[in-house]
């Protein structure tokens, strides 16, 4: 396939967000393998320092629209601009973050362009695909790899006949790395004058603010749970940091809730909620039956405990004997190191 690799860069208060920087790094590698250029589309307000922000990730061309009407994000406005740029430049690959914005925008754009879109990828590779029916081999396709079917299978998705090949990618699975701090990008200003009109602004954002999501442990695929052994409410910050990185939720044993380390709604066990996540990471939880009754059907259990003989270790798949305040930072480090 011809064409370059494009990354849609999300901005927040004039700053390109992390997931987009991760995608630029990933896009840089794909462009390297395909021997093509890496281009970015950046829409926002007050983003004139964009080169300083993203050129170093190895971006060859930046398509930019800097306009007060582009903040806050509006689906119709953004999809019109992005569809226009992609239709004009005919890239072979387009990447979006699997964020609330990316997952709102990418499908609308894919529908406009009538192309394929693979959601929530955790790995991207370049490879070949042999079509069994026609025996035709397609070279150098984007292999978009994602969990499916409730996380019980990993599917590799390809699109050889309706370009561009588009994907949304989960935050935190690609590594963000500076490619060359002196890299120079060509800037292309997108002319909005004939592109967007009043009818694209029919949806009005009245209010927006930070607000914690309601806790829903039952549907969490990964749970990081803490017990009395965590020691303090402050020590739970480390569990939250770790959980954020994994896209996990935080829960706790009754002892941790009674000690005031966590809200009631996060209690797991007989008197709390019963959970069956894909992965349960028990930190400083001894594993009284009242607790294990609410989590022993987890598909995979990791126990971090100073006590090698803690009852929970009997049902765990991995047991790390040690202090969680040392183990968790090491796990975070290890994850960053080994994630793609």
């Amino acid at each position, binding site marked *: 396939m011809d064409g370059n690799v494009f990354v849609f860069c999300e901005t927040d208060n004039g700053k390109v967000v992390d997931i987009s920087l991760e995608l630029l790094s990933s896009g840089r590698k794909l462009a390297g393998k395909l021997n093509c250029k890496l281009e970015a589309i950046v829409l926002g307000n007050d983003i004139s320092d964009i080169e300083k922000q993203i050129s170093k990730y190895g971006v060859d061309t930046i398509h930019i629209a800097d306009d007060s009407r582009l903040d806050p994000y509006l689906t119709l406005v953004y999809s019109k601009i992005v569809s226009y740029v992609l239709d004009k430049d005919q890239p072979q690959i387009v990447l979006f973050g699997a964020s609330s914005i990316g997952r709102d925008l990418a499908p609308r754009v894919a529908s406009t362009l009538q192309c394929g879109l693979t959601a929530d990828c955790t790995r991207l590779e370049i490879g070949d695909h042999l079509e069994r029916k026609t025996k035709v081999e397609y070279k150098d396709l984007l292999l978009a790899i994602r969990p499916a079917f409730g996380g019980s299978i990993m599917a590799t998705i390809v699109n050889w006949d309706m370009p561009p090949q588009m994907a949304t990618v989960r935050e935190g699975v690609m590594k963000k790395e500076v490619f060359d701090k002196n890299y120079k990008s060509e800037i292309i200003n997108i002319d909005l004058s004939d592109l967007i009109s009043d009818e694209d602004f029919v949806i009005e954002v009245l209010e927006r603010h930070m607000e914690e999501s309601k806790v829903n442990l039952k549907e969490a695929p990964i749970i990081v749970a803490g017990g009395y052994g965590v020691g303090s409410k402050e020590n739970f910050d480390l569990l939250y940091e770790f959980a954020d990185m994994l896209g996990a939720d935080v829960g706790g044993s009754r002892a941790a809730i009674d000690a005031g380390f966590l809200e009631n709604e996060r209690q797991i066990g007989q008197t709390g909620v019963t959970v069956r996540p894909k992965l349960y990471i028990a930190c400083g939880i001894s594993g009284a039956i009242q607790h294990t009754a609410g989590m022993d059907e987890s598909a995979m259990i990791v126990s971090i405990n100073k006590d090698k003989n803690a009852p929970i270790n009997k049902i765990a798949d991995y047991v790390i004997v040690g202090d969680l305040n040392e183990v968790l930072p090491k796990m975070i480090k290890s994850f960053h190191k*080994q994630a793609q």
Partner: protein
Amino acid sequence: MCPINKKNNRMKPLKIVVLAKQVPDTRNVGPDAMKPDGTVNRGILPTIFNPDDLHALEFALQIKDKIEGTQVIVLTMGPKRAADIVREGYYRGADYGLMVSDRRFGGADTLATSYTLAMTIKKIGDVDMVLAGVQAIDGDTAQTGPQTAEKINFPQVTYVEELIDLGNNEITVKRRLDKGIEIVKAPIPVLMTVNGTFDKCRSRNAKKLLKYKYARTDTELAREEDFIKELVEQRSYLHIPEWNVEDIEAELSKIGLAGSPTKVNKVESIVMKASEAKILSDSQEDIDLMVGELISSHVIG
């Protein structure tokens, strides 16, 4: 923010289509659902009403509670047995149900599915609002809603968590985003996708359960006993329409496998259970080993 108006008879009744999907219950795929070769045994998983779509149905019913005369139509696309979804919709308060079912729709990805749904919505005609769950648990893509919105040329509001206000030709809702919330006012017509954090769907209503118990599609009727056939003939509301490719005037090149740009190259199943606990030290090497195994078995990352 103004409170929601009490039932307001001056407001124009709406025609609302709820997109609902029958899905295998993937939430609790345990080791017993795995075949010896490690693949998922779909056959033993029960089929359910996609959880987010139930919240979408509740949203539609809340609007119906506010605006007299509003019609709620449950639309499902799927194999013949998906008629269960239409009946479930009736039991909970939907006014009409409709199935789109045809072998030729099979193998559709989200683009082909959204085309099929869009053609159906156009065929229904004069639809004011389309509501769907954010995503279906068998795919978790969250793409079909926005793609359908584009194809019927409706604006879209995704991740809706709460109905805030309803006015003439406009609706205000709260959206749940990655890191916070947003309150938006949208014009009608509009398509909205409804989050799992929206109010839980009301239960089945006993009267409606009795009323619609024998609602059947023609395909189902063919295999039913005579008394059910007669009943459906007498009471037309028990007849669930079943539309095919010709009914919605879909182009064959845009449906099913042919209309789907994304294809599966490979599927790997995930090992569900490690056999025995591995006891590790707190050294970086041991931790790297474990994290590496969790990543390579796709448990994380």
